[in-house]
């Protein structure tokens, strides 16, 4: 019975959720006007990396595919944006979209051969992409600027909007992330989402039910790659210089850590995970150069063993605990009253 109940007006959980969301949005819009330039920079990093983590959630949380190569896809978006702006003076909006499109195509190319066998090979292929990307980028230096990278200027706000460039990039990233969160919800709740649910339960069963296994999985991989590519393009606007060492295997692992930590199947969990990935190296760097990595590992283990569902599952758990406590209490009262 309860499984079919819709979150109606009377559901305090959903109502509280919406309230929290509205407050967070207001804070996100107001925040850049009250904090330092460096904090705005860090917030924007969280948003861009949040887009990448969200793209991992779509992949890992809903289609069960592991990508260790999203650093390269994120980097592909960033480099495409940088090269188009730097070499061809393409407007940056168009350059970012081109980066996303290229990443989408790369996702298709990666996803198709990996379909021949389950998860294992996709993991290895994407690992290869992550390892090779910095090497290849440094090698073709005429195009990419080699190890020193390629630089662009952070663009000013258009249409005479009175905003500093860093704040403009912040709002651009925020808007993009929100659009992607909306798209994410649409995908996972819609037809593709149900097909993915069937695939996760049993690929054979889903195929028997007429879910196009190959088509659905490849499409999700490509969509995820496209999202990550656009995230990379925005990241490029933010940091200005693209260097090969930014887009290494470590970044891919950071995306995965963010995804697992925030909660694989949650959209706002992606932002929490991204915040962790951005702030932990900052806060722990003073403890030694290996400290951030150790914290990643411990956090990953804690979530896997003790907190399945990640940070995103915490409110629901607390609510569940509170409800079950109240329920037992009520039952106890009734029993007492019955005597």
């Amino acid at each position: 019975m309860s499984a079919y109940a819709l979150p109606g007006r009377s559901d305090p959980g959903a109502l509280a959720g919406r309230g929290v969301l509205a407050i967070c949005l207001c804070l996100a819009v107001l925040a850049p006007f009250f904090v330092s330039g460096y904090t705005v920079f860090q917030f924007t990093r969280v948003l861009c990396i949040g887009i990448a983590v969200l793209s991992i959630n779509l992949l890992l949380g809903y289609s069960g595919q592991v990508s260790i190569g999203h650093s390269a896809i994120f980097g592909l978006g960033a480099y495409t944006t940088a090269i188009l702006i730097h070499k061809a003076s393409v407007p940056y909006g168009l350059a970012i979209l081109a980066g996303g499109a290229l990443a989408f195509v790369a996702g298709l190319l990666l996803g198709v051969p990996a379909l021949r066998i389950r998860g294992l090979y996709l993991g290895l292929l994407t690992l290869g992409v992550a390892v090779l990307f910095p090497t290849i980028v440094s090698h073709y230096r005429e195009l990419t600027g080699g190890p020193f990278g390629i630089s662009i200027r952070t663009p000013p706000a258009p249409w005479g909007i009175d905003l500093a460039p860093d704040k403009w990039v912040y709002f651009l990233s925020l808007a993009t992330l929100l659009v992607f969160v909306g798209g994410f919800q649409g995908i996972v709740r819609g037809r593709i989402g149900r097909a993915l649910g069937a695939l996760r339960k049993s690929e054979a069963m889903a195929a028997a039910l007429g879910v196009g296994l190959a088509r659905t999985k490849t499409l999700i991989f490509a969509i995820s790659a496209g999202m990550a590519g656009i995230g990379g393009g925005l990241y490029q606007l933010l940091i200005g210089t693209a260097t090969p060492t930014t887009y290494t295997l470590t970044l891919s692992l950071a995306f995965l850590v963010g995804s697992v930590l925030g909660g694989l199947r949650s959209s706002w969990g992606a932002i929490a995970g991204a915040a962790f990935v951005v702030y932990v190296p900052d806060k722990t760097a003073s403890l030694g150069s290996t400290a951030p990595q150790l914290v990643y590992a411990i956090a990953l283990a804690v979530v896997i063993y003790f907190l399945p569902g990640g940070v995103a599952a915490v409110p629901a758990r607390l609510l569940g605990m509170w409800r079950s406590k109240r329920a037992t209490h009520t039952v106890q009262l009734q029993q007492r009253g019955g005597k």
Partner: protein
Amino acid sequence: MTLFFQQLISGLAIGFVYAGLALALSVVYEGAGVLNFAQGEMATVSAFLAWVLTTRGMTFWLAFPIVLVISFVLGVAVERIFIRPLERASEQELLMVTLALYLGINAIVGWSAGYLQKTLTSPFGSDVWIVHGTFITSQQVGAAAVLVGVLLLVGILFQRTSIGLRIRAAAQNPESSRLLGISVGWMLALGWGIAAVVGAAAGTMAAPTIGLQPDMMGPVLLLAFAAAALGGFGSRVGAVVGGLVIGVASSLAAQYVDLLAGDLNQIVPFAVILVVLLFRPQGLFGRASALRV
């Protein structure tokens, strides 16, 4: 021609290291169904252990067996502590755990040993023999001999002993094995221990050549992945053959393919993985799997 043999020899020498790590990966894969991304880091720990013991005045040939025993215990412990609780978890979750182990072990080794490269003195001396103009070092020959010995012992253990049979049974068909009274959990843990021993041998034998530092096994692990894919995941013979082929192939490619000479040599293992995936996904020695519904 001399150049060809020179590349062949060095390819074979490093190929035995890839073969060892690939065998470790394949033993774990057969049991747990996951590629252990931390296998290389576990081997790094063993190599550092050998360094600690030998620099404290122990002779290498006393330290080596001690390292293997400690590695075995650590391998079993990793399975018991980190993998066992996730018995019914998905492949993705297990993969995440091995990634967490990779990050954690790498950080701990880096933290305790630092990132300055250290030297593990070769236990085979530094003799160089010249055979028909081809240079062969005593380190190459000695390391290859030790690794061949370890690989053979592991092969005999799995094929000819009852404990090996039980480990294989537990890995391939846990339900039936349980009914036959085999302690499946402990057999899988033994598998992890054996994998750790083989990895330790590979790491310790490679360390004098590739240098001792926390990230030393990273590139080796990539090539071992390619070797395991080429041989067929879970096939022990395949892993060893794959390791040798990969070693020789990347050595020859560096010599004869201009594009792959310098930094782009890293492409070789992944090109192999891609080709295997496209044309023979079960690998050279693997069985094609059919899904039972």
